[in-house]
């Protein structure tokens, strides 16, 4: 499958990446190659192989509804680039939230 330049720009916008025209062209080729590689799987998949999102035969990994201590608030925000009054501080949100 070959991607159009519009596809690349759309994906870039969703990832909030600013690409130059040269980069769009370069990535168009690279992303198309990756998709072609993944499509190889389609050649061997058969009707009786269900889509598999996990390679492990695991299910129902869950826990009881018992509270455990949370992080001390200072520690919670310690790794944040910026915090104020115990809250994470983030740059102005521009564009539309989705």
């Amino acid at each position: 499958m070959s991607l159009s330049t519009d596809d690349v720009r759309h994906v870039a916008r969703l990832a909030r990446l600013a690409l130059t025209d040269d980069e769009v062209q370069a990535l168009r080729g690279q992303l198309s190659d990756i998709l072609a590689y993944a499509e190889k799987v389609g050649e061997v998949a058969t009707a009786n192989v269900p889509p598999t999102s996990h390679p492990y035969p695991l299910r129902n990994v869950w826990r009881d509804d018992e509270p455990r201590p949370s992080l001390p608030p200072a520690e919670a925000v310690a790794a944040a680039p910026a915090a104020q009054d115990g809250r994470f501080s983030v740059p102005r949100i521009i564009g539309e939230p989705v």
Partner: protein
Amino acid sequence: MSTTTALEQATRFEAVIGLEIHVQLATRTKMFCSCAIDFGGEPNTRTCPVCLGQPGTLPVVNRRAVEYAIRLGLALGCQIAPSSQFHRKNYFYPDMPKNYQISQYDVPICLGGELTVATDAGERRVGITRVHMEEDTGKSLHVLDTTSGVGVDPAEGLRVTRISDADYSLVDYNRAGIPLLEVVSEPDIRTATEAQAYLTELRAIVLALGISDAKLEEGSMRCDANVSLRPVGHTVFGTRAEVKNMNSVRSLGRAITYEIARQTDLLTRGEPVVQETRHWNEATGTTSTLRVKETTEDYRYFPDPDLVPVQPDPAWVDELRASLPQLPAARRARLVESLGLSGQQAAGVVGAGLAPLLDEAVAAGAPAAEAANWLTNEVTAWANERGVEPAAAPLTASHLAELTALVADQTLSKKLARQVLDRVLAGEGPPREVAAARGLAQISDTGELERAVDAAIAADPAAAQRVRDGNRKAVGALVGAVMKATKGQANPALVNELLTGRLTAPDG
């Protein structure tokens, strides 16, 4: 007659409405980590590496949340998926620290149920597309840079503003990760009233199941409405707008009514409806564009590799099915059939969560219909005024039985009983004690009332004469005078009887 008025145009459209309702689950801990769930408190005091999305952490499903999802699914007649899965919904917005929200996509836990709602036009069945599990988001404050000297909110020390005007935002992740169920209806709803009935019924079911406190005002239950119009008789859907931010059943009705009018106006003028998310503004009673909606593909859903499938044991599902409580529809039917309440009374009692109290009061000797009236009128109004659940009223079944007994033996008139109930709700004690302490007992002492009746006749001979002349209605003024003289404590039926006796007696 070739001209059509806007109104005639309007009647040629029908609304197609679907609701998406989020229910915050009343578990003790979050969906994927063991942080406690609570309300209020300092920001980021209930967070951990998992709900903060730190690298190397793994989410683990809260089994109780799965149980609650299954319970709701069963109550709505859904199929419980033998295997369901969590997906990542990817987006850039700092209300989730991970840049994605864990949700369910193509294999939700519950599929295909229905809800029957009572409307003015009779019962209506609304299909449930799905119920899925997801995690709640954090709360953002959008603030102005106060170092520039702009006014500061003394409480917060922050100048909070709208997102579009903000210099930066502050995020609290205490709410991030709280389990939510999203209940998606089929587009089977046609009017604002039906939408309100659906929301009310779903809320009653959630409360009966005990899986959420379901408070619309506080956001533990949230309702979004997808509204579109199409010409009557057409089967193809029109372009829809999704309306958010309705925090009461009443707002939902108002928002849908507004949205139908807005779209009708657009279509009547030949203009298109834009597919977008709109924000309901309670103060102005209007909706406005919040954002032009991205398509589902743009969220790039993919299976969360950190979470394995949920495959509830059929025996567990059967056990949950067997332990479902009586649901609101069945409760209403029982109140009508076994206690003889009207449909409206039964709906009021069950809707207010007061069926258990009514049952107990009836067991304590209260007449059902009368007790139901006190509950659906006075007690519900009392709770509404205070913004609390009616069931939280400090009124016991024995109080209610005592109150109805005092009315039955004419110690209290309805009006006095209302005053007594107010005092009982204020915590002054049982009705009999309150009536005695406050001197609110009804005067049924004939001697005392006769004196008051004579005084009233003497004070208004003209009215008395009209009654003697056969004008029965004129007695009202005299009854009023006696009630006033006795500060409302006279037994009105007795006063009426005494007055009529006096004024219609042959030698009166």
